[in-house]
């Protein structure tokens, strides 16, 4: 069926009249009202709390919109945290969960609803269904804590040499990613895998909105026009230029066309920490330290 709708006036470019000022005022008032309404909504109760049918509907939505990072069954997929943990870093109440899903978490890979390039975005109703689903998946008993965080910290800054390349809360090196929050955003298994097999997964090159780091930490080796070899990690790169940090934390800004050679590898610059180099027990301690920091 077609209906011819009433004619709409286009928005003109220039209008600086009292009418326009009034309109701006009205819009501002409306925006304020909207902000208030959103805040009020975030305080709202989950209309579906404990509803098994809503949890099932939430599971479909979760698969489409969330599972890319949080994994099937919300158990964490390497990119995003395991949401079956009852204790969450950014959201305790369901109202807070609603706010996090709606608005994302600035400075992390968690995007605002509908902006991750993956799903289609969710209605309020669907967000509550997802929260109901996540609640239904939570493991109530706290997991036995594994590892000694105090010893882990000693290892991190000491003989395990982690801090030569990684920072935690402002202390450490710059060649690898800052690990201050990694314990909150990665599963235990994902962190262990990154230590044992650092090349298995470099930083996750996802859609723009879900990129946690601007860089993917590829290893770059170049020879400049004057014959100097530089090896380091990529800070950024495009088709024509590359920005590298070398092992001395020197930044090199290079035009690819002027290089004698350019080689990029996804073999991580990080050494492989075999059990001989770092025992399972010591690794548990380091992970306990990181998870403790990440939970802050």
């Amino acid at each position, binding site marked *: 069926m077609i209906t*011819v*709708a009433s004619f709409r006036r286009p928005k003109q470019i220039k209008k600086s009249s009292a009418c326009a000022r009034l309109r701006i005022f009205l819009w501002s008032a409306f925006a304020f009202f909207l902000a208030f309404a959103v805040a009020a909504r975030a305080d709202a109760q989950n209309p579906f709390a404990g509803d098994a049918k809503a949890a099932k509907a939430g599971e479909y939505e979760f698969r*489409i919109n969330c599972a890319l990072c949080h994994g099937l069954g919300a158990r964490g997929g390497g990119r995003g945290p395991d949401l079956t943990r009852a204790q969450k870093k950014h959201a305790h109440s369901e109202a807070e969960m609603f706010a996090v899903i709606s608005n994302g978490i600035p400075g992390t890979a968690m995007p605002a609803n509908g902006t991750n390039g993956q799903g289609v975005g969710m209605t309020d109703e669907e967000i509550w269904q997802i929260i109901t689903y996540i609640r239904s998946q939570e493991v109530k008993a706290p997991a036995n804590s594994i590892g000694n965080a105090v010893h882990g910290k000693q290892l991190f800054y000491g003989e395990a040499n982690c801090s030569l390349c990684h920072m935690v809360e402002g202390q450490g090196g710059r060649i690898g990613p800052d690990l201050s929050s990694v314990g909150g955003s990665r599963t235990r298994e994902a962190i262990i895998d990154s230590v044992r097999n650092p090349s298995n997964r470099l930083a996750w090159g996802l859609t723009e909105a879900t990129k946690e780091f601007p860089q993917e930490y590829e290893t770059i080796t170049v020879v400049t026009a004057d014959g100097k070899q530089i090896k380091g990690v990529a800070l950024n790169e495009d088709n024509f230029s590359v920005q590298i940090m070398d092992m001395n934390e020197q930044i090199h800004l290079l035009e690819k066309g002027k290089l004698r050679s350019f080689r990029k590898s996804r073999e991580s610059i990080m050494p492989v920490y075999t059990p001989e180099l770092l025992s399972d027990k010591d690794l548990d301690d380091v992970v306990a330290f990181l998870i403790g920091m990440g939970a802050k």
Partner: protein
Amino acid sequence: MNIDSPQGVLQVTWKSGASAPRKQARHNSVFSPSSLCAGILGIWLLFVIQAHAQVTADRLLQSSKEPQNWLTYSGDYSGRRFSSLDQISAKNVHSLVAKWVYQTAATGKLETTPLVVDGILYATAQDDRAFALDALTGRPIWMYQHEVPADIRPCCGHVNRGLAILGDKVFLGTLDAHVIALDSKTGNVIWDVVAADYRKGYSFTVAPLAVKNLIVIGVSGGEYGVRGFIDAYDADSGVRKWRFYTVPGPGEPGHETWEGDSWKVGGAPAWNTGTYDPSTDQIFWPTGNPAPSNRGEGRAGDNLYSNTLLALNADTGKLNWYFQFTKHDEHDWDATQVPVMVESRGKQLIAQANRNGFFYVIDRTTGRLISATAYGKQTWSDGKDAEGRPIANKSASPTVEGHTVCPGALGTTNFMAPAYDPQTALFYVTARDQCDIFSTAPQPYEAGHAYYGSAYFPSDEAEPYRGFLKAIDPLTGHIKWQFEHTSPTWSGALSTAGGLVFTGDAEGNFIALDTTTGKPLWHFQMGGAVYAAPMAFAVDGKEYVAIAAGSAVYAFGLP
């Protein structure tokens, strides 16, 4: 400056066949008080009346005669995205500079291809914005924004890929499934019709196609279980002249390819602009995935006309022939890529680089498949049917636990507009190598809610994802050259008679490559990722190339 009168002068000059010196037109002051005597007013009125038929259907047919203008989404009816302008060439492209930048003030992806008519550029931006700019300076002439409801459900961003122009109107499809005609000189709404209920997931993101006096447009919403359609509206009145449902109803041929009631929510959207062959009066329009996109259970059968190239009679919308690329698709491989009309050895062909990883060549008089060749990483098909169509391996179906299939859900290519260069006889297309883990789950249909029946994840097996511009010989399917990007891009391509192919990258570069070798000859960092395809135009006899990146439109020219 008054817009009407100079355009009127231009129009009259155009009709006389002489080339209009634009400077003269721009400075022609027919609007000064002293000139308002009756005789001149009469002439002025005549100009205005003539200007009312600014872009005639005949001009659209003869677009090759006015390479300074870019009159349709793909530049002309053949879908080639080729410009015969050759002023900017492989020899001088190194000196190309940015001439202007227009900031749209919209956030999010810009997928628009601008139109240019007689010095005015028309384009669109996020949330159903449309605007007209002075193509020489980038200064806006008018801006329009449709009032988009807050609860629209477009799948993939609040995007729009551009306008159609006919007469003195430009035509916009909106995210809430309206078709709107705007006055091309003021942006005023001339008519506004509702094609479908956006609350059920229907929307428009496509650039419409003007054919004769019809505005042809295809719907989006394959992620919501819509019943897809292609509509044609009378350009003057907005009255719908025909609708072709891409999912046949009871009693119609093809209905038997759907299980039970699955046809009602069968998807098969038509969200990319088709092409038109005036010699046979056929519109070629491609369709998208069946719904739910990643679950075949419950919709047993081929699911016609999903992932199909349709040949429709332009006047009636009646189906002449069809070719289905991916039968019973379970991987979201919309076949909505531009069907490019190509001539070879006297044969009238259509070439399409499909999202499923195969490059198809089809006889456009009969719809018969001539060849299908893989042009990227694919694992879903090892065999072909009697017609030569690639068919899916049994193991390619998504499972509950999920398993890896190539290409991934985003496809080997997607909406990135390709280019075909008659000088090199090469087809240029943006391609990506990425595999995904496809998982499936039962999902009941609920109106207006996402309807995927699935989840998919990037698979480790194909990391890192690789992105290319590939030059394909349509005759053989061979890849003549490929330019590898740092990461996969969503930019389309433009080829020009200057021996250049232009494209953009995800890191914000606009790049000119040699059409025969793929060697990059020039680039410019625009500071925002590219999701759009370039186009070329000329003003005052000088050639420009334009593209949208970030939230802005850029124009480049020689110094």
